[in-house]
């Protein structure tokens, strides 16, 4: 009995450690980097990090629900490409507020379109969703290329007022950047959705067991539309934050975001098996990914090796996720 007791204590301890592995890793990473490179904790670098994680954070927050709902979204890259070129091109003719709204609407529509195609085909598995959203990503990207004729658009070409975008890109409210404020608002809204609304619960149930949820009267089709629409909206928000920061929008600006978002979500501890997870975990995941890349930057590691590291962490995180939920 005592052996069993110790065993289970160890198991509980191990599971807690695994659950908060991200936090431990973040702490370790911060400590290590600060030790090697004191510049890491300088105000400039911290501000830099704050701006750096904006776009990925938005995108990953949206992707969280798609994954909690038991699906996956590779169309994010295409959505970002499209939203970025559409929004930036409309500032001049339409004014910045309509441009902003059109951009957000475009992203939401792209997301909803994913779900409509998935639902109409009756695709229920992650694999089917993965391939279908990949195809759609290609389509969205191609539309972005056709729309922009493949050229990059710059802020300095815009003579109309673009104050909102400039504020998002580099402005601050007190010591917080505007993009950080947007992040806080989005996080709060999505957390409320996740924890306190009926639809948030329906999404979880859908991810937990689609068949059982449907037979209990849960509107799983609506949940699927909602998760992809949120995914698209947040991708659009991410696109806007992104091009505002770099002050240019190219039709390939979003490449890599889809995998990085999945990476952040899974690293944070939301399981790919659906049903479980949280936007708060995703925040951790994004923090870890961004801190790691910042740390590698400071240490002078090439960006290409960073991709290698990301791939390795993604693979490891997926493997760990699978072990945890076997």
């Amino acid at each position, binding site marked *: 009995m005592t052996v069993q007791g110790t065993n289970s204590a160890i198991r509980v301890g191990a599971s807690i450690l695994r659950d908060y592995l991200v936090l431990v890793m973040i702490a370790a990473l911060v400590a290590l980097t600060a030790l090697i490179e004191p510049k890491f904790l300088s105000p400039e670098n911290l501000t830099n990090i704050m701006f750096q994680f904006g776009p990925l954070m938005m995108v990953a927050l949206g992707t969280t629900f798609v994954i909690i709902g038991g699906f*996956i979204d590779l169309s994010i890259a295409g959505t970002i490409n499209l939203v970025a070129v559409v929004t930036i091109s409309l500032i001049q003719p339409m004014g910045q507020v309509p441009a902003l709204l059109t951009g957000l609407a475009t992203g939401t529509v792209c997301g909803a379109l994913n779900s409509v*195609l*998935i639902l*109409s*085909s*009756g*695709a229920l*598995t*992650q*694999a*089917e969703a*993965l*391939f*279908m959203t*990949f*195809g*759609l*990503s*290609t*389509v969205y*990207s*191609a*539309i972005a*290329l*056709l729309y922009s004729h*493949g050229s990059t658009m710059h802020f300095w070409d815009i003579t109309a007022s673009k104050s909102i975008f400039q504020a998002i890109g580099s402005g601050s409210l007190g010591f917080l950047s505007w993009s950080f404020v947007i992040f806080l608002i989005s996080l709060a809204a999505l957390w409320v959705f996740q924890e306190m609304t009926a639809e948030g619960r329906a999404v979880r149930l859908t991810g937990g067991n689609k068949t059982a949820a449907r037979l209990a009267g849960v509107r799983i089709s609506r949940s699927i539309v909602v998760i992809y629409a949120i995914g698209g909206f947040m991708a659009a928000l991410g696109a806007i934050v992104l091009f505002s920061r770099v002050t240019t929008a190219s039709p390939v600006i979003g490449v890599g975001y889809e*995998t990085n978002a*999945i990476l952040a979500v899974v690293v944070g501890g939301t399981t*790919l098996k659906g049903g479980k997870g949280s936007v708060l975990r995703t925040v951790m995941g994004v923090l870890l990914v961004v801190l790691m890349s910042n740390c590698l930057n400071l240490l002078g590691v*090439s*960006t*290409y*090796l*960073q*991709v*290698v*590291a*990301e*791939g*390795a962490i*993604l*693979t490891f995180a*997926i*493997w760990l996720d*699978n*072990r945890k939920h*076997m």
Partner: protein
Amino acid sequence: MNGTGKGATLYKILTKQKALIAILVMLIGMLFSHSNFYSAFNLLQMLSSTSILLILAFGVTLTIIAGGCDLSIGGIMVVAGIVSIKLMNAGMPMGLAIFLAILFGTVVGFVNGFLAVHQKTEPFIITLGIGLLLTGVAQQLTNAHPVPAQNPSFMMIGNGYFHGVPNLVIIMLVLFALTYWLMRYTEFGRNLYAIGGDYEVARYSGIDVIRTKWLAFVISGTMAALAGVLLSSELNTGSAVYGETTALVVNCGVVVGGTSFAGGIGGIPQSALGLLVFGLLGNSMNMLNISSYFQIMLQGAVIVAIIWLDSYAQKRKREAV
């Protein structure tokens, strides 16, 4: 809902033979195009340029029939190509360089198999991760710039002809025959079908399911590396950019042919047809001077349509009450 009559038959043909139908439609369409599409040169050229994709597809087919899939082939392909060129440029004999590059693919396939089969991780997502990792490796190796090959005889592998037929086509046909034989006439192949059809039944029947399915991933990785070597020979450069969408296109192409993600059905000839759809599509669009952006869009749309049809067919099967 009474699924009888002509409508149902037509539907069955459409879903089962979608690749063949798509090819026929394109071939007929091109009759009216007043282009050089039907010249022997163009057709051979098309076959040659599709060969690499076909070789990738033959390997991937094994994993999909076994109930998995392999999205790391794009990464394996580019890294293997770069490795072979870099090794040769560093003075290694061509044969050894190629051998090592292909061996690299075998090793990655082995790792894929370990994760996806032995550890039972969802194959599509884990191979996607490995693919991402390899893309990083490729960029690191090349510093994101193409690496030209300095060995002229290497270039001849991918660009030479044998009795008027491009080498690539010949290699592709040999691999076609080999994998076809493997899947059709060997116990390994038949066991893969059984594993994809019903994993548990295969296990209870005494098939070493893990080793067999694992081997499918190893073969897929090896063939992807071979395709990578051929691609870098054809282009005479090694570059990190070609691999980005290749993996997804090839996996989709295999499904177009009629090999389903559900596992257990399909085959090498079907995959060949499926990939020919993409080859033919690209070639026809080039012949018709369609803009490259529009080509990308069409390719994406075709993928969506195919996966949609595959899912819909499975839904129909599920709902056949």
